[in-house]
């Protein structure tokens, strides 16, 4: 469906002239084209509606919340694509739909040539090997009663890979080594590890099946500053070494810029701007993107003073 996909939402004309916040529901500022290049993932007009119900036994739908409203983007093979936005903008819901942890209520998810939006549980099994997820909270995403070895080997068991005891242990220890964990810690429990190490365990589990697409939903927001960089660099390294495509979701704009080649800014369930990271930060076109960038505190007292001076010099809009 490359190039010819119907696209209900996105304006391919390029930069929309001077959009205002009021336009956000219609105007997506987009500085690349859909359907071009070698895409591992094509998302078109993706929607998720959560019904708000009333009544104890007979549920009546009183109204619906559109958490994701017509989102379209591509993830190219081998690139890191970023989704950034504030809480409630629908970025995690989008990720969960792409993993099919949530069922979309509309739109298409074309993964490597197959539309997976409507597939049932059984038909999804092969797809699950190809798309894996790294979660935000390394404390609640690991079973506290399972050893590290068994956590990382669970996906292997499910898909019937490396079934022999010795073979499995070898595979798991390779993975542990790859993510910077000591393979001798195979039999330890999650509570014996720090937050950063737990996130490494989560990453080892996610790459165990050799996925084509890794979705990382706020993978560093629960970690300490000095540990964050370790995990970000690990993800960058793995992507390079394993040729992964990465969908990286975060609220922190500086982190997304560091990680991503291209990125989309989400607001109220829609993409309001999509561009390369360089372009987006150098010339933000949408007012929401500008507001978001402007709000990031800079660890440089002089930059703050400069910014205030620049703003004071601007004529009142």
């Amino acid at each position, binding site marked *: 469906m490359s190039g010819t996909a119907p696209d209900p939402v996105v304006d391919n004309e390029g930069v929309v002239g001077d959009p205002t916040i009021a336009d956000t529901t219609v105007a997506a500022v987009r500085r690349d084209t859909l359907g071009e290049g070698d895409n591992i993932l094509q998302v078109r007009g993706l929607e998720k509606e959560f019904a708000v119900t009333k009544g104890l036994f007979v549920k009546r739908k009183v109204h619906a919340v559109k958490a994701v409203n017509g989102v379209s983007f591509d993830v190219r093979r081998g690139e890191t694509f970023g989704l950034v936005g*504030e809480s409630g903008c629908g970025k995690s819901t989008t990720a969960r739909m792409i993993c099919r942890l949530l069922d979309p209520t509309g739109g298409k998810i074309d993964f490597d040539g197959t539309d997976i939006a409507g597939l049932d549980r059984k038909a999804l099994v092969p797809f699950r090997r190809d798309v894996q997820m790294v979660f935000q909270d390394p404390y609640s995403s690991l079973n506290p009663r399972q050893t590290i070895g068994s956590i990382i080997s669970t996906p292997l068991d499910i898909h019937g890979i490396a079934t022999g005891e010795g073979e499995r242990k070898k595979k798991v220890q390779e993975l542990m080594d790859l993510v910077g964990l000591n393979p001798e810690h195979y039999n330890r429990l999650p509570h014996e590890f720090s937050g950063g190490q737990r996130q490494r365990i989560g990453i080892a589990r996610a790459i165990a099946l050799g996925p084509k697409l890794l979705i990382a939903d706020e993978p560093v927001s629960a970690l300490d*500053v000095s540990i*964050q960089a370790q995990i970000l660099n690990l993800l960058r390294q793995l992507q390079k070494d394993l040729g992964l495509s990465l969908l990286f979701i975060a609220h922190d704009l500086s982190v997304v810029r*560091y990680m991503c080649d291209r990125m989309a800014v989400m607001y109220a369930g829609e993409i309001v701007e999509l561009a390369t990271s360089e372009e987006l930060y150098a010339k933000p076109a949408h007012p929401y993107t500008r507001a978001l960038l402007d709000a990031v*505190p800079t*660890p440089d*007292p002089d930059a703050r003073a400069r910014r205030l001076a620049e703003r004071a010099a601007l004529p009142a809009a």
Partner: protein
Amino acid sequence: MTDSQDLTPAGGTTAGATRAGDGAAVPATDRPAADAPLLEVRDLSVGFRSEDGLVQAVGGISYTVERGKTLGIVGESGSGKSVSSMTLMGLTRTASATIKGQVLFEGRDLLTLSTEELRRIRGNEIAMIFQDPLSSLHPFYRIGDQIIEAVRAHNDVTKKQAKARAVEMLGLVGIPDPGRRVDAYPHEFSGGMRQRVMIAMALANDPKLLIADEPTTALDVTVQKQILELMDRLQRELGTAIVMITHDLGVVAETADDIAVMYAGRIVERAPVRELFSHPRHPYTWGLLRSIPRLDMPRDVELVPVDGRPPSLIGLGDDCSFRARCPYAAGCCRPGMPDLDPVVGAPEHALRCTMPAERRETIWNVLSEGGTPEQAAVAAGIPQTEEVA
């Protein structure tokens, strides 16, 4: 926080310290308020007994906060930044805690006050706001009633007067239609609005000092910006001094006058904000600065994480606690814990590291140009060992 390092650590020489001994509440007007700092912490240490041994959460920290100024305390989890501030408020007075040192608030040592005396100060002269505004507000009570309770706990006013004060404060912190919203419950507010309510409550009694423990960590960046701007405005209008505790170097750069960087229960570097960001001097501070991605830096500058992780606070040795993670320790680090000494040529800048000044300069020059710690160490002529954390 000027020159607390010049003061004799044991104290007891100022009028305030001797008076604090008898525990009498001294009215602020009695003392020479103009030159004494509002808050002076001297060699504060806090330890907790645990099953595994003594956890030395705070290992002897000293700082001062001037009236109307903001001190930023930066550190990672477990660095002792929250425990030290909670101790100021008497919130760590538990059976398992050992607290030493002095906390002089307008000359009175808060550590020697009785719980009843402390209660008169808490929420009145010193107020605190926390990270999570949802769990700091009582879900069953209207926010107005919670502010009224705080006002009436310290002032002999009628409920009606206290409510008028609550409405006034809610208006001041930018809650729209405060006259109506005063009767709303916490769940009816968004996260940012709840933090505004917390600030309104904290400032309702005109405190002289506000302790803000990660006040914006749970908030979105655009909301964070609003809250920081609000705190800045209120500080200018009301003259409140602020201790801003955070892990975010960006937040302190935007708000603080002075910054103290904490690591493993100690202050490792302390300087005025511009000085700290233009001439960071401690290897840990360098590590923090180089491990965060920044919008004002080219994208291809690699982040340099600080290898390893913070030490356990149980059985900390006598050596510099950052030594095990420090890429520049070889060849210049001496055994023993370095003191927090003023830097030669920059008396406002205090540092807990014994590295020679020239070497320090060489290393930071390399790091600030985007070099790696290895390149910096080579430039400074530090012998490289094949040690991978």
